[in-house]
């Protein structure tokens, strides 16, 4: 079923897109949000003009999803919009394919904040940040600033390049495939669910410099340090609950494959890695957790291993038997598969897209960046972080009432000598 890749017609979803579209339901959101807090209140009309100019340059974002007999597929969306809306307190609401004119990208503004929400089947964080950076550049140009097309800002007058539209998974799927071994059940870190469509968001802001110095003092990277803090906090939480048998604590950490395989695709190109600590073997100090995380991440991240894993995933979706199963049967099976292989073996998600770099001309106009992950399949928090300048923003977002994971996480940073400022959308 080869899709014509010229973007004038339909095209098929990439490997990650197949999964996210099959999972989409009212109680799970494969939507993530990036926000930029600007130096002055947002001009909504200028932002709408910027959206209108930017969208045609990104045909992979200007799509609607359609349901075929066997698979979902994308087709260009020529409907009016997408429109910039007033921001809401419960972000990252699950996407409904038939609503909002079929748009899979949403734009919001509130005071100084510009937010873009993207359905994960469309693109991963790496692709969405290129889109967002270009949108911010066009917005600032609309306000009269001169912003060059450097540091990853794409030229909106140029036609989209074929490399941006490619399915990078398919391109690099070669050789022997490997789908990972059986992964046991991890501690689920769930809490009391909030009423329908409530997403509790708590953001912490700290200095990148302080974090870097702290991570350096342990001989690790910032991502490794923050992942280890999160794992230690979850390990301690499980220990306080005193279960009969302590389960392993494992995180899902998405890896941007563009750093390993030369691809400029604006679609999905990620894999997840799984650092895991098994507390049934004995108590771990923070330094021991940190050492484990540091070595596990480095051991698992090799070009060959990642290629084998993405090849295994691609081969799985190309399976002839799976191809002929109607979508109505395929979706529940994939949802069950995700629950067993994508939810059960993990205690949470931590993602760090890294530093958001912009042309120097844009820097004074952006105060900070923010990232939020949508609600998980069960009431637990997802953690995400992004840095801009000297501000590292760390978000905990989830549908659980309790705040224990984020509270202990930020208290840990404070005890470790890192000053944190906290903001939240919680009202009680």
């Amino acid at each position: 079923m080869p899709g014509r890749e010229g973007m004038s017609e339909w095209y098929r979803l990439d490997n990650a897109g197949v999964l996210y579209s099959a999972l989409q339901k009212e109680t799970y959101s494969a939507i993530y949000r990036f926000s930029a807090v600007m130096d002055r209140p947002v001009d909504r009309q200028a932002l709408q003009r910027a959206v209108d100019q930017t969208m045609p340059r990104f045909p992979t974002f200007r799509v609607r999803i359609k349901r075929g007999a066997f698979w979902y597929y994308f087709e260009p969306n020529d409907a009016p919009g997408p429109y910039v809306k007033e921001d809401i307190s419960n972000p990252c609401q699950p996407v409904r394919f038939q609503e909002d004119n079929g748009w899979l990208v949403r734009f919001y503004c509130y005071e100084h904040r510009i937010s873009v929400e993207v359905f994960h089947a469309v693109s991963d964080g790496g692709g969405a940040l290129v889109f967002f950076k270009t949108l911010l550049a066009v917005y600032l140009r609309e306000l009269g600033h001169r912003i060059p097309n450097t540091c990853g800002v794409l030229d909106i007058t140029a036609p989209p390049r074929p490399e941006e539209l490619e399915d990078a998974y398919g391109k690099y799927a070669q050789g022997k495939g490997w789908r990972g071994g059986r992964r046991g059940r991890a501690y689920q870190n769930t809490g009391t669910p909030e009423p329908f469509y409530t997403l509790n968001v708590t953001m912490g802001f700290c200095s990148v410099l302080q974090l870097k110095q702290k991570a350096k003092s342990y001989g690790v990277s910032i991502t490794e340090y923050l992942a280890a803090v999160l794992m230690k906090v979850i390990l301690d939480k499980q220990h306080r609950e005193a279960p009969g048998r302590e389960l392993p604590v494992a995180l899902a950490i998405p890896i941007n494959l563009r750093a390993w395989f030369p691809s400029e695709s604006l679609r999905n190109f990620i894999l997840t890695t799984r650092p895991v600590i098994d507390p049934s073997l004995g108590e771990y100090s923070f330094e021991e957790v940190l050492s484990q995380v540091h070595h596990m991440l480095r051991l698992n991240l090799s070009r060959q291993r990642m290629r084998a894993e993405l090849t295994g995933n691609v081969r799985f979706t190309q399976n002839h038997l799976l191809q002929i199963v109607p979508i109505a049967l395929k979706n529940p099976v994939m949802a069950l598969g995700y629950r067993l292989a994508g939810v059960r073996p993990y205690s949470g998600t931590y993602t760090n897209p890294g530093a958001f770099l912009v042309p120097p001309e844009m820097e004074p106009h952006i105060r900070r960046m923010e990232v939020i992950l949508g609600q998980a399949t069960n009431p637990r928090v997802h953690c995400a972080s992004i840095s801009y300048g000297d501000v590292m923003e760390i978000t905990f977002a989830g549908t659980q009432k309790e705040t224990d994971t984020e509270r202990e996480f930020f208290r840990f940073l404070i005890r470790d000598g890192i000053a944190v400022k906290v903001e939240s959308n919680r009202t009680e």
Partner: protein
Amino acid sequence: MPYCVHCGVELDATATFCPLCQTPVLDPVQPPDTTSPKPFPTQRGEVAPVSKQELALLLSAMLICVAACCGLLNLFLKPGRGWSLYVIGAAAMLWLWLVPPLLARGMHLLLRLLVDVAAVGLYVYLISMDLNGQAWFWGLAAPVIFWGGAVLLLLGLVLRVYRRSVITSLTILIGSLGVFLFGVEYLIDQWLYRAWNPSWSLVVLTICVGLVIPLIIVRRIPSLREEAHKRFHL
């Protein structure tokens, strides 16, 4: 800038409590800023209602169509026997189960159960019409259906009105099943023999009581309850 006295984190100037530990911000020198905008919007995103009317319309059309086609066919196929009443009754019952909850948003539990029980009653009544079974319908089927409805209603109200733990809910469920079957045998006996001679339902009730007793003990003794919560992740 306010700080949380428990967490040590800096808070937004507009914050009235710490979002991590809910400790109120109490600074007599610098009260929370009530004029500046909050860091996040306070307006919730409204959930666009799913088009339930359309779904109700489609379901109604399908069920009416099935009922009409079978009614028509009955005129030619075995016209002496009202077999289509079974299909029409099933369609009516399904309609009453599915469509009113779609049309009436937040339909009250009591009303919904009444409608559902009435639908079952209607269907069984139609069957009794075909089988000339008015006697067994009014003598046995209707009392059993209403008894079942009453037990369900009580169960629904108890489980819904009061927030129950899993153990308590399970206890109530098992207990209700025993009581329902006990009542069913009473009604059968009354219909058949005009006398009550409990036998099999007593066995079922005893089994239910046997199942319920350990659950009540676990529920009543805090240490056991905590252990059950811990072991079974309740």
